[in-house]
């Protein structure tokens, strides 16, 4: 029985292309994958494109300009399942650091002709503009999770990916907790599992690239980090780094910074 191939599209917005690259990095699986999947729009892989509708669309990048806002709305209309992929698409990305500054100041600091740059006030996660069906987190997105997601769509089930705290995976893996054994600040208790606990495996704390876990309590972690001697400003910075613009982290950051924007 030959099933119709799944039509997959990959669109890039404000991003570094690292997440898309994770698709091309599936070197061992890519050939088998293309038996079941047709990449109909994926500029990083091929300039040949086909129009929608698409079965699954992966969105990489945050929404940072008025054009992007418009494009992502059109893409949404063409997509049966829309997946926000990576820290930029799910939380605004590193570039969302500018959201705490004045746009004009940022433009002037970066571009010789700031008046040419048309940007939105904030670098926004896709879900702030259109409905997102699934999120695949990470900076970059995890190749294993991406593949697992595609496989699950292919068999026709509702994709299931655990969204609990990274600590669970970290400990399953047999890592020693760096907070407890080394006093290193770690965001793992409030960050979604999925990366395989890469950072703690190498003896450093998680810096939060997967964003808040389901039911995360960053406020409790922030108090603990202060209790073990971190300054408010440093705690705020830690939360800000990769997924600071996610709703949950943003709240804590704003409290730590005294609501200053």
């Amino acid at each position, binding site marked *: 029985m030959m099933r119709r191939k799944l039509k997959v599209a990959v669109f890039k917005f404000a991003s570094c292309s690292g997440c898309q690259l994770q698709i091309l990095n599936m070197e061992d699986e890519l050939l088998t994958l293309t038996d079941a999947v047709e990449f109909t729009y994926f500029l990083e892989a091929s300039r040949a494109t086909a129009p929608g509708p698409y079965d699954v669309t992966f969105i990489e990048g945050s929404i940072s300009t008025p054009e992007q806002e418009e494009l992502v709305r059109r893409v949404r209309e063409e997509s049966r399942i829309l997946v926000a992929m990576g820290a930029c698409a799910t939380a605004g990305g590193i570039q969302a650091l500018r959201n705490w500054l004045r746009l004009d100041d940022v433009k002037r600091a970066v571009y010789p002709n700031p008046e040419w740059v048309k940007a939105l006030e904030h670098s926004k996660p896709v879900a702030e503009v259109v409905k997102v069906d699934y999120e695949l987190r990470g900076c970059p997105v995890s190749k294993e999770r991406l593949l697992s997601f595609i496989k699950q769509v292919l068999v026709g089930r509702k994709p299931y990916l655990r969204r609990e*705290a990274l600590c*669970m995976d970290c*400990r*399953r893996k047999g890592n020693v907790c760096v907070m407890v054994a080394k006093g290193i600040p*770690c965001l793992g*208790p409030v960050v979604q599992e999925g990366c395989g606990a890469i950072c703690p495996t190498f003896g450093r704390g998680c810096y939060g690239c997967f964003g808040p876990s389901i039911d995360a309590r960053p406020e409790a972690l922030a108090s603990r980090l202060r209790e073990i001697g971190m300054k408010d400003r440093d705690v705020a910075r830690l939360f800000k780094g990769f997924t600071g613009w996610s709703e949950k982290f943003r709240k804590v950051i704003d409290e730590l910074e005294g609501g200053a924007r």
Partner: protein
Amino acid sequence: MVSGGIYSGKFGELRKLFNALRLRGYRVIAPKLEDSVIRLKEVTSFDEVPYGWEDIQAPGKYSVREGGKHFRHGPDAPKRILYPPRLELFRLRPDWSVEYPKERFPPTALFAIKPCDLASISVMDRVQGGIGDPYYLALRKKLIIIVENCVEPGATCFCSTMGTGPEARDGFDIAYTRLDDDLVVFRPGSDLGVELLSELNIEPATDEVLRKYYDALKNASLKAKAPFELERLPDELELGLNSPVFKEVAERCFGCAGCNMVCPTCFCFDVIDEPELDGGAVRVRVWDGCFSYTYAEVAGGNFRKDLWARYRHWVLHKFAYWVRQFGVFGCVGCGRCITWCPAGIDLRETIKSVVEWVRSRGGS
């Protein structure tokens, strides 16, 4: 000739015992110092066991130092070996026939584990063993246990209160106690234990050694205590269901489930089916825990949507429901959930406060 009873010998006899296990083909799993933490891992040489090191434990804190006399357990419990964190249960081939994994477990010796961890195995025997988990039983029947009694309990240990230590009562093949640098007391607990001890150069303990031995263990048992008693504890805790203590403590909790993961008896799991590109699939079992949000999630909602309710459930399962379910406490007093909680939350304090709350309202 060794039979039941108590024997003593020099420290070197421990090395002989270790080597005897290896010679008989056992995979030996023992405490091992790795990156400044005492792990529980496969050890191929007796010298890897961290005699001469000690750990320092406190709520949310762990370190080691050289020159100490006694080590306690680190973060890894026997659960990690007997009930692996991620276990492939079976594979579905593309033609939908089922393939079970082949026998994967070599005969295994746990060497120098602590009495609380030994007790955790007997709890697992009731739970995983009781329901007939074939994956657990396959490993369990090939297990031999050499336990090291604790002369110096750590600051987060409360096995004495839980009745699980610092001296191992039963369920071991051999129990030994290091009384001083060159004096070790041995007790066999099974036929195999007797057989192994017969190969050592040990003799029945003299009265003087026995006195030393009992004194040391008595001293130790005065230490590993929690600020509560077990008598009536399940009932009192259930009377404390509405105590504000759970909410207060949960304010500091992250819900990270780290405690569930390190706890030697927490048995909850999630089953995940992972489809393969060839049309087959793999079913895996991974550790889960009641602190996680999705754990109690069902279609249409969550029975314990608030973290305080999940925190309360964990305490009550360990100290009340478990007793009714399995006839034993679900806690062996190892203190791992205290040491390894990144928030530094102390279970003993929670229980003490709930009991105080109940009593202050005349509830007991």
